[in-house]
Structure formats: structure tokens, C-alpha cells
């Protein structure tokens, strides 16, 4: 197993460590050097006296609205549950008498015990998503849409800047469709806020909603021309290989996955179980077979937040019939993981915080380094270290797998947010790289595009170009306006423009 940059093994636990205990001792000791509570009280009294203190009611203070959000935790907190419970004996005999200390300690211990019991992690199923009964609704006013394509042909589906659907065929015929209702959360990142089913017949997308908590999952049936809106709220989607089920994950850290029937829109919820206990869910990756789903999870209290970091990120395979998760490996921070469509392997990409690209065998659990791919990206990919969820997370914005292979087309983004502690953007040359995980090879096929999708026959790679200046940022602005094809898929392949005016790429319909 490879190491993280600091030399720590990847499976090293990241909490409850001696370092945290040392930090607590340090802060306690620093605190002991400051004023006592009585001293502060005296200072405050003096300060109020000096300004001629008047009753509080005469001068209200504006308190920010965020207070209401904070009340979910610590609702009944008392002085005893503050950090003062950890303060050591003070210097210079300032503490009260021994008897008082003992009584105080007993009260504090009791209060701490009560508080600890109250702070047990909330069960994921109680984190705000109501039990689902499955009553999808049909959208009123939706006129239906069936892309008018010859039988057997594929079409790239995209949204234009006015929110209207388009289907463009390989010969460049562009068919305009109706506006997609409530397309507010669609972007083109791997968390898949819009995704076309593997059989190309339906599209699921997340409607407008809160970017942190998600929107309603809607299902568009191309053949029937229907649009169903489920009552499942989610941020991420993943189609099952047989196109029958959509896995949907809600609020970050929730630890639950919705399984939505694509035909009916009805769904049910499972709780991710990691090492025998409810765990956290960071990101849905993709299904590995009909009943298993690769995901980034965490143990215990939800703490996997792979869109932006998280304290613990485990690559796992979730059995969707039970929620039980088989942990493959601990992931570096931030995790950049790409699971092959056949569910056999995953690329753990290199980035500023993970210098070695790795291949994870999802069946055996083996994790091996990819030295050639690592070397090819050694001085690149630095811009994939983006700590802010609101600005696109940590992963490459654009990628696609060549059908039937373990070859991944991955973008190298041109502009990103600089690493933590630095100011200003970081830049690098943009481009598309083909990474063959079986052979450990890396080949650059484009210097000014990002990959969107691969045709089913594997002969044509769809690209977007030119890369937008804000390419690392999530949302429609993340991609260039043009769709083009690259065929054959090689650095010497010919590129043809199919469409312009794209705001968001949705996938390939058939």
C-alpha cells in the first residue's frame, strides 16, 4: 500500500489520535495562562460600569440569522458542557477550596456524562429525510419529447443557455426540444446531477434546489415523452447497469441512499453500514453490478464529505439489498476516484495531496501503484486540489470511460483554486488524457478540450471546447460552448464540431 505525502499509511486512523490529545492539553495549558472566570467577570463589570451600563433591553443587539441553524446541536447545553470541563488546575492558587473543587468536579462529571449521552451521533435515517412512500407526480404542461433520430443512432443530449433540451446526431443534425423544467442544479461534474441511463432511454436529473441539500429527482422518459418528479431530494445520481434503478444520495454526510425505480418513480431508502454500524456517505461513484454500488463512505458518525474533503474517506462497495459495505481502502484527501463501468477497477488519481496514482481492484481489494500514469501527471493535476465544495470539489470536472475497457479519458483542467494557504488561482495547460489502467499508460489526445462521453462503439470521443476560463468551477459555466467529436480517438484523430451554444452536457441517448 502506498503512503500519503506525509508518510502516514493510508489506513492510519485520522481521529482519536495522540496528536488530538496533545492539542487539547496544549489549548488547556494556554487557557490556564489567561484570566480566570472571576477575573473576566470583574473586567466586564468594570467595563460596563465605565460606560454607565443600562439594562439590556434598552439597546438590542442584532444577532445573525445563522443562530437558528446552530440550535440543532447543543440545544440544552449548559455551562458544564463547555470546554471548561477540561481546564486543568490553575496557577498561583486561584482555584477555590478543595471541597468546592470536588463538588464542582462531581457536577461537571455528571453533566458531561449527560451531555455525552445526548451527543451520540444521530442515526442517519433521522437526519431529515422523511420516510418515502413513493408517489411520483407527472409534470403539468410538459409536452413530452422524443428526439427525432433514425433508429439505432445515438444523440448527444445537452441544454442550451436558455434551458432548452437539444439532441445532436453524429452527422451534426441538431434537434431542439422543450425547456427542461427546474433544471437549476444541473452541472457536469461526476456527482451526476443529470445522467442518462446506460440503455440511453431515460434521463434522471436533479431539479432546482439548495446546492447543499439538493433538489427533487426527476425522470424523463425519451420514448414515452413523460417526465416524472419523485419526492426524493438528492444531490447525486447513479444509474444501475440495467437502467432499472437510480441510486440517489441526499445531503452530504447523510449516510443514506435512495433507490428509485426508474419506471415508476417509487423508491426506498437504505442506510450505509460500515463495519457493522451506520456510516457516512460522501459520494456515489457507480454501480459495480446489479446489486452493488461503489461509494466513498466513512465509519461511525458521518464524516465522509468527498466533494470537499472530509475527515475519513473510505472506498467501499455497498450491497444495496442490505446496506452492508465492503471497505476496499482508505482514500487520501482529497479523494479523486473513478470506477470503471464494469465495476472491476477504480483509479485513485494523483493530485497535490496524493502524489501516487493507484489502481484499486474492487473485487480483490488490492491497491497497486500506477508509476507511469503517476509520472505522466507528476507536475500536473495540481489544480485538482480544490477544497471548496461550492467551487467544484476535488475531482476532475470531466471524464468518461471507453466502453468495454479500463481506459479512462480524464481532463486536465486549466484553471483552479490554489491549494489551501495560497492566494489566487492556479493554472496549468488544459487537455484530455487517455489513461489505460490495465497497461498503466497515459496518452494526451487533446490540448484544448475536455471529454464529455464516448460513443457506444468506442470509436468516437465527444469533447467540449474550448475550455472555459473558469473550467474548474461547477455548473454550466464550467464547460465550453461547443461539442465536437474526436475520431479515431488518438492525438492524430480528426476533430469535428457538432454543436455550439451548449450550457450543460447531459449524456448520450439512444
Amino acid at each position, binding site marked *: 500500500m502506498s503512503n500519503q505525502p506525509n508518510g502516514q499509511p493510508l489506513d492510519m486512523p485520522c481521529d482519536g489520535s495522540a496528536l488530538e490529545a496533545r492539542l487539547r492539553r496544549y489549548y488547556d495549558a494556554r487557557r490556564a495562562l489567561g484570566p480566570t472566570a472571576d477575573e473576566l467577570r470583574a473586567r466586564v463589570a468594570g467595563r460596563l460600569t465605565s460606560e454607565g451600563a443600562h439594562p439590556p433591553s434598552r439597546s438590542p443587539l442584532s444577532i445573525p440569522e445563522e443562530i437558528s441553524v446552530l440550535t440543532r446541536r447543543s440545544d440544552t447545553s*449548559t455551562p458544564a458542557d463547555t470546554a471548561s470541563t477540561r481546564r486543568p488546575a490553575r496557577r498561583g492558587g486561584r482555584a477555590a477550596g478543595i471541597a468546592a473543587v470536588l463538588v464542582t468536579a462531581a457536577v461537571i462529571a455528571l453533566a458531561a456524562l449527560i451531555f455525552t449521552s445526548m451527543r451520540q451521533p444521530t442515526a442517519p435515517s433521522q437526519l431529515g429525510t422523511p420516510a418515502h412512500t413513493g408517489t411520483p407526480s407527472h409534470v403539468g404542461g410538459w409536452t413530452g419529447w422524443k428526439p427525432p433520430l433514425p433508429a439505432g443512432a445515438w444523440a448527444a443530449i445537452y441544454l442550451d443557455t436558455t434551458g432548452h433540451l437539444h439532441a445532436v446526431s453524429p452527422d451534426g443534425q441538431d434537434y431542439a426540444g422543450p425547456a427542461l423544467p427546474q433544471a437549476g442544479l444541473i452541472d457536469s461534474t461526476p456527482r451526476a446531477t443529470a445522467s442518462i441511463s446506460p440503455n440511453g432511454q431515460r434521463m434522471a436529473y436533479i431539479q432546482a434546489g439548495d446546492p447543499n441539500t439538493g433538489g427533487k429527482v426527476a425522470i424523463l422518459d425519451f420514448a414515452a415523452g413523460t417526465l416524472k418528479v419523485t419526492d426524493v431530494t438528492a444531490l447525486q445520481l447513479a444509474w444501475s447497469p440495467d437502467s432499472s434503478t437510480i441510486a440517489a444520495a441526499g445531503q452530504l454526510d447523510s449516510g443514506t441512499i435512495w433507490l428509485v425505480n426508474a419506471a415508476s418513480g417509487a423508491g426506498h431508502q437504505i442506510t450505509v453500514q460500515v463495519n457493522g454500524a451506520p456510516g457516512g456517505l460522501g459520494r456515489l461513484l457507480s454501480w459495480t453490478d446489479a446489486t452493488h454500488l461503489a461509494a466513498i463512505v466513512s465509519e461511525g458518525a458521518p464524516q465522509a464529505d468527498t466533494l470537499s474533503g472530509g475527515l475519513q474517506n473510505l472506498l467501499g462497495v455497498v450491497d444495496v439489498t442490505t446496506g452492508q459495505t465492503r471497505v476496499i481502502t482508505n482514500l487520501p484527501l482529497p479523494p479523486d476516484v473513478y470506477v470503471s463501468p464494469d465495476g472491476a477497477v477504480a483509479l485513485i488519481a494523483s493530485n497535490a495531496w496524493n502524489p501516487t496514482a493507484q489502481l484499486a481492484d474492487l473485487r480483490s481489494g488490492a491497491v497497486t501503484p500506477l508509476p507511469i500514469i503517476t509520472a505522466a501527471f507528476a507536475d500536473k493535476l495540481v489544480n485538482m486540489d480544490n477544497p471548496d465544495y461550492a467551487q467544484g470539489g476535488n475531482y476532475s470536472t470531466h471524464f468518461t470511460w471507453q466502453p468495454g475497457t479500463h481506459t479512462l479519458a480524464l481532463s486536465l483542467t486549466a484553471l483552479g483554486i490554489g491549494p489551501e494557504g495560497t492566494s489566487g488561482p492556479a493554472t496549468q495547460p488544459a487537455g484530455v488524457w487517455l489513461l489505460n489502467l490495465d497497461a498503466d499508460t497515459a496518452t494526451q489526445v487533446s490540448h484544448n478540450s475536455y471529454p464529455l462521453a464516448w460513443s457506444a462503439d468506442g470509436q468516437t470521443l465527444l469533447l467540449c471546447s474550448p475550455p472555459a476560463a473558469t473550467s474548474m468551477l461547477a455548473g454550466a459555466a464550467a464547460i465550453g460552448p461547443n461539442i465536437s467529436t474526436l475520431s479515431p480517438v488518438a492525438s492524430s484523430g480528426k476533430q469535428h464540431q457538432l454543436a455550439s451554444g451548449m450550457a450543460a452536457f447531459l449524456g448520450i441517448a439512444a
Partner: protein
Amino acid sequence: MAASASDVAEDVIARAARGDAEAFGTLVAAYADLTLRVAAALLPDAASAEDAAQEAWVDVWHGLASFRPGEPFRPWLVTVVANRCRKQTRRRALDTIRLDTDLVDAARWQDDDTDAVLAAFPDPELEHALADLPDEQRQVLGLRFGADLDLATISHLTHTPLGTVKTRLRRALDTLRSRLASHVTAPRRGGSAHE
């Protein structure tokens, strides 16, 4: 029947909100530690933190009228403290600079009374490693391990997405582990022990 701790706290808060100075004093004493720890995490030096904590309590005195009875007091209080710290930071931004850590280190080791200087710092090695962290990472560490705040509260206090808070915490811990591990075998003399 004896009132529970939370009942007592609510009663004290209610009386303080009505202008009862004694109750307010009780409140200050009870939560002084928390406010000092939050301020210490958010501000770069102890003197500023103590000033901010003191001024935050003045804010609390004036603001208790807007505090809704029955609402949790602790998150309201730490938000007042954070707001005061932000004001303090803005006020001091024009007339302070951050000392280069090498200069601080050199100054520390050129002091004749080395033992006394070291004794003033609970954990000089950790102190130095913390000083090298980006401000935002150091703040998260102080709020988490110094003030014992949960990550959601830190997220709201610092106006930072929860995921970013986690990222900063993880990176800060990783960096400290690395730095402190390298110190184990490094000679701690002459101000050059922190490479």
C-alpha cells in the same frame, strides 16, 4: 424538586436578560472559559483575544434583549463572540503585521532566559508547528480542540462550508503529524530545530 442544570441556566439567562446584574455576573463566570477559548482561536494573540472576549460580554449585555427565551444560549453566545472577533480583526488589520516565524523563533532562542521563555509556552514544539499553519487551519484547530466546538458550529461561526472546515482540520492534523514526527529526531538547539 431540584431544578436541572439547564433549568438553572435558563433561569439565570432570563434574569440577566431582565437586567439582573448578579445573574449576568453568574452567566459571565459560567461561560467565561468558552468565550475566552473561542476568542483565542479566532485572534492571533492572547491580548486581543482577552479584549474581544471582554467586549463580547458587553455585546451580550446589550444583546440579551433580543435573545429569545427558551432558545439555546451557547450557540448564540459563541456567535456573538465570533462577530466581536471579526470586528476586532478588521480594526487591527491596518496596524499589525504577522511576524515571520523564523524571526519569532530566533527571538525566542536568543533570549538569555531560555528556560523562562520555554516555560511560558505549554508545548513549544507544537506552538511552533501551529504558527507555521495557514491562519484558517489554525483557527479550526483552536475552535475544535481548544473551544471544543463541533464542526457544524465551526462552519457557521467562520462562514465556511462544512466540507471546507473538515478539509482544513484534516490538513492541519496531517501537517502537524508530519512536522512533529520530524522533530522527534531533530536537535532542538539554536533555533533550527523545526525544519
